[in-house]
């Protein structure tokens, strides 16, 4: 069967090699662009939706910039509040080196008071947080602990120094949480310092509202803190909105990818439709001869569909090679790029369906060609 179907197709491909090469090139290029957009789009989506590791549902961020700072109001809507200082949002490059002995590890410093553990719902893995914990106490995330104290060396009670803070003593280790910033690495390696930084610049709080009372708590905070003024900025935002600018840009980028992807698919479809029509029209006499030699209509239909499938397979093969090479060459640009087989399979199926769909109508027309066409020119 394969010999019967592939033989004429391969002969036709040899005869029309220019046209076939163009089809394969076009399909390969379409595959490359679509697969790249799907893979990178999935990566952007994953990155923009990355979880911090703590429940953000009822969390509110409060920042007061400008002259003086204010105490947060006591409110029946508020479950707990923690004073903390940038870079809780990991902005403006507050990355530093943490050291234990000769070992130096790159990571973040977050300054907070002890209630941050309860407000964020951090999971204590080692140590405890006594009420009288003094200044200089440090809580490490699991990732930072593993890097600073490899091989399970004891961490509690150890002295840790940093380039941006006085020496501190490790009092606890908590499960990993993550700062949300697309522009930096090491977002899990965090030292939470239970002290005030020397130049705070801004009064910053994290507030956890009672379950389901976030809006009411935010309103109560806004009323109590006032609207700000010419020398003071008060910002009250749901914590889930942190990084929302990046997220909305990521959403926009995905829409743009979708537009470009649809455009490419449209170009591919236009090309496939016109190409298939031409291929069929140019071979009316061949079809007539085959029909005269006993080929049935469904044989003719299958002949053109096999041909379209073969070209799609070659195009996809070319596309997979180019896309794979491109993503391999550029993998350093996309941190933890998730290259999944299903992405490639989906694009391959779309292009194959595109090619088959475009070949179907002309092939059906070809199947109607009478055997008498064999005796005509063409």
């Amino acid at each position, binding site marked *: 069967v394969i010999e019967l179907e592939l033989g004429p197709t391969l002969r036709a491909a040899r005869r029309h090699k220019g*046209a076939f090469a163009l089809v394969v090139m076009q399909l390969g290029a379409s595959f490359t662009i679509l697969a790249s957009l799907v893979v990178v789009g999935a990566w952007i989506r994953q990155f923009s939706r990355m979880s911090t590791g703590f429940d953000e549902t009822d969390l509110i961020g409060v920042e007061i910039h*400008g002259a003086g700072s204010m105490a947060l109001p006591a409110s029946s809507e508020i479950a707990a509040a923690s004073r903390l200082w940038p870079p809780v949002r990991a902005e403006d490059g507050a990355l530093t080196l943490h050291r234990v002995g000769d070992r130096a590890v790159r990571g973040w410093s977050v300054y907070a008071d002890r209630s941050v553990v309860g407000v964020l719902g951090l999971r204590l893995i080692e140590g405890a947080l006594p009420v009288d914990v003094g200044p200089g106490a440090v809580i490490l995330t699991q990732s930072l602990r593993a890097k600073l104290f490899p091989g399970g060396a004891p961490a509690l009670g150890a002295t840790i120094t940093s380039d941006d803070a*006085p020496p501190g003593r490790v009092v606890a280790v908590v499960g990993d949480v993550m700062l949300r910033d697309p522009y930096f*690495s090491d977002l899990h390696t965090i030292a939470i310092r239970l002290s005030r930084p020397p130049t705070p610049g801004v009064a910053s709080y994290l507030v956890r509202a009672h379950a389901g009372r976030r809006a009411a708590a935010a309103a109560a905070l806004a009323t109590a803190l006032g609207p700000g003024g010419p020398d003071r900025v008060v910002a009250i935002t749901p914590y889930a909105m942190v990084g929302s600018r990046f997220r909305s840009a990521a959403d926009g980028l995905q829409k743009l990818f979708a537009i470009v992807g649809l455009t*490419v698919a449209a170009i591919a479809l236009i090309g496939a439709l016109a190409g298939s029509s031409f291929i069929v029209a140019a071979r009316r006499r061949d079809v007539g001869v085959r029909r005269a030699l006993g080929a049935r209509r469904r044989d003719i239909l299958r002949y053109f569909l096999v041909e379209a499938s073969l070209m799609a397979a070659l195009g996809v093969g070319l596309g997979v090679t180019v896309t794979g090479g491109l993503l391999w060459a550029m993998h350093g640009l996309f*941190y933890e790029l998730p290259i999944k087989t299903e992405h490639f399979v989906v694009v391959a199926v779309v292009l194959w369906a595109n090619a088959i769909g475009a070949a179907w109508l002309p092939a059906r027309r070809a199947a109607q060609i009478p055997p008498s066409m064999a005796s005509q020119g063409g």
Partner: protein
Amino acid sequence: VGGLRYHLRLAIASLRRDRRLTIAVFLCLALGSGMWTMIVTHYRRSYPPAPDLPPGLHQVEIRHPRALEVDKGTVAEGSGWHARTRVTFPEYELLAGSGIPTRQTGTYRTRLVVARDPAAPARMINVRFAGADFFGLFRVTPGAGRTFTRDEEQRGAAVAVVGRCFAEQQIGTANAVGRTLLIEGRPFQVVGVLGADQPERPEWDIVWSARDQDALYLPFDWGRRLSVSPGHAALQSPLADDPEALWRSDAVFVAFWMELPDAGRRAAYADYLARVLGPRGQPYWLRSYAAWRPLFTEPASDIMFFTIVVAVGLAGAAATAARLMLAKGLARRPELAIHRALGATRAALFRMQMLEAVLIAFPAAVGGIACGAALHVFYNRFVSETDMPVALGGTEVLIGAATAVAVTLLAAIYPAWRASRTPPTFYLGRV
């Protein structure tokens, strides 16, 4: 001319006859070149050519090993921009204290509480502190008013230069000269408004590339007076607990530039550096802007990836167009055979096909630019992360149009060649 007119009429008639194919070719090329035009704009924005700055512009790099280590944690891993292009405040004072008569500036940026008038609510605004020479050294020119002067800087005058975008969006007028802004609760008078948006890569402080632009410029010394906390400061050791700690610390945050326009001043400054920095044992390098810039080119970014992907897409569009033109040419073989039988040479048929391609190429170029412009609008509205709009400039329009024409003509060569090889006897088999 008559011949050309005849061939043009023939080509137009041919394009009209196969209208659907013509439209399909046009769409393929317009959409492909539209995407290309957009990516070219982004590429040129992310990897701009070196701007025309004074030839004598110099920067001193002082080695900061600890800050350099932290630099590896940014997305531009290993770039060293934070540590290598900036110095500490005490180092800045040393670098700026040579006494050589020339233009020089230190600069850094932070976010401050700014209100457009005493009755208005304040906002957090990007403020750059810079010397009076900053504007001349980097050719940052006002569109209205003037920049602040050395005299005002020395007197500690509360004056500000406003970015164009900030003036239009926050103050509500492009001519805000004379207005008073409240910055951290203190009144500053606006003396000038810049005439253009900041480039995506500000050469004066490249760590702020691809971020929101500088909204306000204040005299350098005001930063210390306002006790600001500079953005992107790379701390190398803990700060003491007092307001002056930052200014005597080893925190790296000031970009310093000076103009050394002649050999005499360059030599004098090199001697000065050897005297003040040499004994410290800390490696340093004095570089002209021309030597500095290749060391701090933009790292490979996702824009490069998308440029390659779109180039592949453009090749795909060209292949589609070629396939369509091939289909059209081959479908017209009987007609071409008649032309050949009537004496038309192969070259004439080839030219005829190429002329048709030319007639498609120019509308495709226009369509591509329109498509690119639409994509820019979409990008600025839904994707852009900064306040610097992506604009389709003259160069990008030219590149986009030239690409569309070139790709169309390239795509047409094979189909035209195939069509021109139609034998004069071809039609005989049809009758």
